[in-house]
């Protein structure tokens, strides 16, 4: 296990402990899983690929619609929300949150975690 991977796992564990977050994952922009706390029964590979597709398409839509920089994608459903955002050039952060979650709190925690992931990967590249 590499130091980079251990630090990413620590970051995602910490994010998953935020009360309104069910589970979270760090995935690569090409759709591979790095680390996650997704529950049994959820295929992390599928979540990673779909998250990469959602963010990629959302970024392209943002550009095509001349809406400036893409910030995050939020998918709302009956039983929860899926939030995904960039974490540097290489990775994405995704979280599954409860339907009645305090989004402000969750987004704050996610943005902090995304910066940590970016920093860990940047340090690891050096």
């Amino acid at each position, binding site marked *: 296990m*590499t130091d*980079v*991977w251990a630090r*990413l796992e620590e970051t995602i564990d910490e994010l998953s402990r935020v009360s309104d977050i069910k589970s979270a994952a760090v995935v690569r*922009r*090409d*759709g*591979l899983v*790095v680390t996650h706390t997704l529950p049994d029964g959820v295929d992390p590979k599928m979540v990673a*690929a779909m998250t*990469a*597709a959602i*963010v*990629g*398409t*959302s*970024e*392209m*839509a943002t550009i095509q619609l001349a809406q400036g920089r893409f910030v995050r994608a939020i998918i709302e459903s009956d039983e929860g929300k899926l939030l995904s955002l960039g974490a540097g050039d290489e990775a994405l952060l995704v979280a599954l949150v409860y339907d009645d979650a305090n989004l402000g709190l969750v987004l704050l925690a996610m943005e902090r975690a995304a910066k940590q992931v970016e920093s860990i*990967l940047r340090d*690891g*590249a050096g």
Partner: protein
Amino acid sequence: MPTTKEGLQRLLDFFIYGMLRAAESLGNAPLFLRSVEEEGLRKFLLIDMPKFKASANAKEACEAYTKSIDEGGLFSTTDTTFTGDEDTVHAEIGDLCPYRRVCTMRHDERHPVHCIRAFALAEMLRIRLDADFDWKLERFGRPCRITLSRTRWG
């Protein structure tokens, strides 16, 4: 079937070029190409290339895979060479690469060159060695140079 070898190459160019542009317009060409390679390799590595035995050494695995591609008649790989070790592989790919024409078109049009051979090698290593490798196109030219190295977060 295309009636000539040139016709077959043009058909390949047509689909590769079109699919790359479509994937880019939808937002994520690397995801698309990696998924295509993963699905294709999972099928063909296990069914149509049963003789292919990968070493745990990444360089040897790349050589064995490339040899099986050639022996299987997919395309000639005699101008592909590998150096490196179990963690890092440097590949040089010459003019015989079937994707070169599309890569050249994209390069000339100032689009990013997504090396399909590199995607294939990285996916093969992931499937056969159960290890993630990142790749980088160090140089697009004659020959192309790519480097595959074990991901630092694996």
